[in-house]
């Protein structure tokens, strides 16, 4: 029972670190998916006095992936009454050209600003409409959400590292005696610390498997999937290969690091 408790304290500590890392990964993926969705609905409008060469324009502006000319017909229709078709043709020719720009990704306010300045350096472009007010609000909300989750993950990580350091002292006390006795009978360092590393690896594996079960359950949870569907995004909550690999790597690294500290901190008994 006592031994189980000793295992449990490290397993819980490792599991909470894995939980915070995976939560961060999920939020990051959700934000990326949401940005992807936003970029599909977001575009800039430029007004140019001259016709824009699509190929040159796309070559010069890597952030822009498509440029479409907007038809002036809707505007002209409003002025239609009392104007002859000849004058409408002339009006069409004298009107500036309107273009809608599709971007490669959802831009940051800085990227939008840089793009606007770059576009306005072209004398023929007289206006760039970025719809910055609504764009900035959405972007800042996303950033705020990501920051909150990062702070949350870091706090959990910090508290867990403190827990692990406390655990380290208990382990050090517990294992020092056995390691000293083994040393007195000529056991090499690897053999003295073998039990410790075996425990560390077993605990890391248990924590990873528990994390795997937990997040597999969450990824199939109707409630979670409904929440993501309600904001119109499809997020991979738990990749059974990559995420499991990350979890295994993190928990093995942490627990073997803990065991290494104990081995390095071990003092020979005189």
């Amino acid at each position, binding site marked *: 029972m006592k031994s189980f408790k000793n295992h449990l304290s490290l397993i819980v500590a490792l599991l909470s670190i894995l939980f915070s890392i995976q939560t961060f990964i999920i939020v990051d993926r959700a934000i990326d998916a949401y940005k992807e969705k936003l970029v599909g609905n977001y575009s800039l409008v430029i007004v140019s006095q001259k016709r824009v060469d699509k190929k040159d324009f796309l070559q010069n502006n890597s952030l822009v992936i498509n440029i479409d000319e907007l038809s002036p017909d809707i505007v002209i229709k409003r002025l239609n009454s009392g104007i002859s078709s000849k004058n409408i043709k002339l009006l069409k020719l004298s009107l500036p050209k309107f273009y809608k720009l599709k971007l490669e990704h959802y831009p940051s306010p800085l990227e939008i600003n840089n793009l606007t300045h770059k576009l306005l350096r072209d004398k023929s472009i007289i206006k760039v409409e970025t719809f910055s007010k609504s764009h900035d609000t959405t972007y800042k909300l996303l950033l705020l959400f990501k920051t909150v989750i990062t702070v949350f993950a870091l706090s959990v990580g910090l508290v867990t590292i403190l827990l692990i350091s406390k655990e380290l002292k208990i382990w050090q006390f517990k294992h020092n005696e056995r390691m000293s006795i083994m040393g007195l*009978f000529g056991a090499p360092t690897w053999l003295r610390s073998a039990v410790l590393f075996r425990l560390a690896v077993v605990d890391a594996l248990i924590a990873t498997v528990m994390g795997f079960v937990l997040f597999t359950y969450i990824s199939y949870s109707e409630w979670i999937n409904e929440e993501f569907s309600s904001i119109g995004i499809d997020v991979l909550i738990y990749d059974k290969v990559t995420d499991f690999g990350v979890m295994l790597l993190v928990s093995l690294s942490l627990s073997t690091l803990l065991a290494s500290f104990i081995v390095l901190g071990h003092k020979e008994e005189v």
Partner: protein
Amino acid sequence: MDKVIVADNLSLSYSKNETIINKVNFSVNSGTFVFITGASGSGKSTLLKSLYGALKPDSGSLIVAGVELNGVTKSKLNLLRRHTGIVFQDYKLVKEWNIEKNIMLPLIIGGYDSAVTKNQVDSLLKHVRLKHQSGKYPQELSGGEQQRVAMARALSHNPVLILADEPTGNLDDYSAGLIWNLLEGANEQLKSTVIVVTHHIPETMNVAYKHFHIEYGSINEVV
């Protein structure tokens, strides 16, 4: 006869200001049974610690089983300890292992075959009259029983050198008798060199022995 221990101008101390063993010279032949006596605090246990490399010589030379312990490397020291059986005053049993595994320790370290290990441990458990308690943990045994386990562990790998620090201190006559029998047996049958630090030499010893006495930092053979 080969010498297992050779001390030449050996000095030992725990701090610079307090020399416990001061420039002593002595040697022990292979297969000898040796008692080291002396008053409390005279340096008996200190000398014994130096013989298994837990205390480095301040000066002089100390050669044990052909290994110079002054400036010995970790790997050479480990090798020496693998051929030495040590009985500690405070037993030094691993609390989280049962007594069977405790006795196995030197055999595990020595990389012995599991069948050999099992036979040897069974035989020793019978010798120390603890066969019926093999699954118990040290804290479940009395002091005398723990000392018998420590003795069995020290003998399990048939060491060339056995070092025992007060092996019968605080033991009842029955347990003390078992311990002396085992040490005599190891000396007679296995030809192990036995060094015992004690306050009192038992009145009835079945083997010939040498007696060194430590006083005021020097060591003298009592003839």
